[in-house]
């Protein structure tokens, strides 16, 4: 099998690439991977250094909106796993245009190219944020979409496009919706790596509002394993939630990070809440559990401790990224 992975140099995409080439996923053993990545600010080739020697890996620098490029690549591709997206909510609040261009228009270009070139399988990777905020209980896949940020609205648009290509054209596409990811190689503008890298350097961290916003945390290894399961066994036109099973308020998460770095609340600056900040996300993973046998395997305490240690050990990876992004 030859898999084209868009956004394969990013945090989640590179994890999927590394583990696929490590033959970690049943059904994808021996697969070849072509990474297509525009290497915008968060794409980083160093995330893929571990597989650079693999004769099953190749890299193409390019934009998912470049239809001519897609038509050159897709004839040799059996499956597409589409990670490429603008994903930082704060950036979407400041300027939504690139989110619409990449997430909506880019997905449409990919879906069209897949259709034109007869790609047999397409997995569109999305987010639980498309559901909006939920006060109690958990969303299942039938929940109507009520995105509240420009980022989540753009992802909801791309989800609906993907679904429409199944309904209209019969494209073999499945959609995954994950909760908040964490793990190594996470770009240091996101809350966990930002807090960890700041705190181990004795710098302050910003906590939005009252810190009571609740997120479900999913280790990136669990997430990409779920995606691989959907790629191999998911049904065309279906949506699969992927969650980690650890719900924490931002305040609770901050306490864990302060503990892990040996710091205290004097390092936390309360800042004005994010515009449109959803109070709680929570996904019901009954479907993927029942149909594909998915379970989150990485306990949050273990995963978080490993992540903190990873950032302690890999300053050479994150320091240039923070400097470049002026974080």
């Amino acid at each position: 099998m030859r898999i084209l992975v868009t956004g394969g140099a990013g945090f989640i995409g590179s994890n999927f690439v590394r583990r696929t080439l490590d033959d970690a996923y049943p059904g994808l053993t021996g697969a070849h991977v072509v990474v297509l990545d525009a290497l915008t600010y968060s794409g980083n080739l160093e995330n893929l250094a571990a597989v650079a020697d693999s004769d099953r890996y190749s890299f193409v620098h390019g934009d998912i909106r470049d239809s001519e490029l897609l038509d050159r690549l897709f004839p040799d591709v059996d499956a597409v796993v589409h990670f490429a997206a603008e994903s930082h909510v704060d950036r979407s609040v400041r300027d939504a245009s690139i989110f619409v261009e990449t997430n909506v228009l880019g997905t449409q270009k990919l879906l069209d190219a897949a259709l034109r070139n007869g790609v047999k399988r397409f997995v569109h990777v999305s987010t639980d944020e498309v559901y909006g905020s939920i006060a109690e209980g958990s969303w299942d896949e039938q929940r109507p979409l009520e995105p509240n940020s420009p980022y989540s609205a753009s992802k909801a648009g791309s989800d609906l496009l993907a679904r429409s290509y199944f309904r209209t054209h019969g494209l073999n596409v499945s959609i995954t919706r994950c909760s908040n990811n964490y793990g190594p190689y996470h770009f240091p503008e996101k809350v966990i790596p930002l807090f960890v890298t700041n705190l181990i350097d004795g710098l302050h961290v910003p906590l939005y509002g009252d810190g009571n916003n609740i997120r479900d945390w999913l280790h990136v290894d669990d997430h990409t394993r779920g995606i691989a399961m959907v790629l191999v066994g998911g049904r065309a036109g279906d949506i699969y939630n992927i969650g980690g099973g650890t719900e924490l308020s931002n305040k609770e998460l901050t306490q864990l990070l302060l503990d892990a770095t040996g710091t205290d609340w004097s390092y936390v600056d309360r800042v004005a809440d994010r515009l449109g900040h959803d109070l709680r996300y929570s996904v019901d993973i009954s479907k993927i559990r029942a149909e594909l046998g998915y379970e989150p395997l990485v306990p949050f305490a273990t995963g978080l401790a490993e992540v903190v240690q990873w950032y302690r050990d890999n300053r050479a990876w994150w320091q240039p990224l923070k400097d470049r992004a002026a974080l």
Partner: protein
Amino acid sequence: MIGLVMASSPARALDPRVAVVTVSYGSGAVLEGFLHSVSAASTVAPIVIVADNKPHDGAGVAALAARYQASYLPLDTNLGYGGAINAAAATLPASVEWILVSNPDVCLMPGALDGLLATGNSDVRIGSVGPAITTSDGAVYPSARVVPSLRTGIGHALFANIWIGNPWTRAYRNDAVPSEKSRDAGWLSGACVLVRRSAFAALGGFDEGFFMYFEDVDLGYRLGKLGYRNVYDPAATVIHSGAHSTTGDSDRMIEVHHHSARRFLSKKYSGWWLWPVRAILNVGLNVRSAVVRRRHDH
């Protein structure tokens, strides 16, 4: 951990983002020229480290390093070129973004390091930048080459010394492209090359399985395969006076050269189904090594 100090006159500010690393193997006679040239190659002062693969030969390398305010790193055993560079790179602070890897018998022309840095910083996809490398008599050395394929590699190996201008060597050396033209290359000569530190670190530095030769081919190949660009920038120039530290040991160097070629090709053609290719290359390289040694002995 060795101390890191400024390698320049006090007029230039230390730039902790840039390091220069060189390797001595009885290189006292040429090292001073190199260290002196570093101070004129940039408007800022880089961190400079001299790794010494032969620290007990009385070449005065430590004293020279001290005179130029470079850090001196004596190595207990001869780690080879790549190994010594890796050992030095491991001591660099996290602030370093670019490492100029250079032989000590190189002389950087004024502004060369600034030029390489400007090119490297122009694109996050650039993993390495190489200058124009000239010999002492002004001839341009083909330092920006394509990664050898089976066809060009075999043709070059067989005919480079007996058929000047053979098409395989010309293709391998990129001879069709004017040497004064900036371009992307498959790999850049490790005699003097600026490497993005984060990419270098992510790849684990030079493959220390190459004692000498081909470690630069391998690094360029791995950078390129990962997705980075190797860019030749002839606006920056250095003079390379030659392989001074190996001239007295040619038979062994021929053997090492062929061993490294074998290792690189085995890595590049690593799939299990390519074992016949590896076997044929192995036989060919053994024969070539014997022939070259015999010619050298005569």
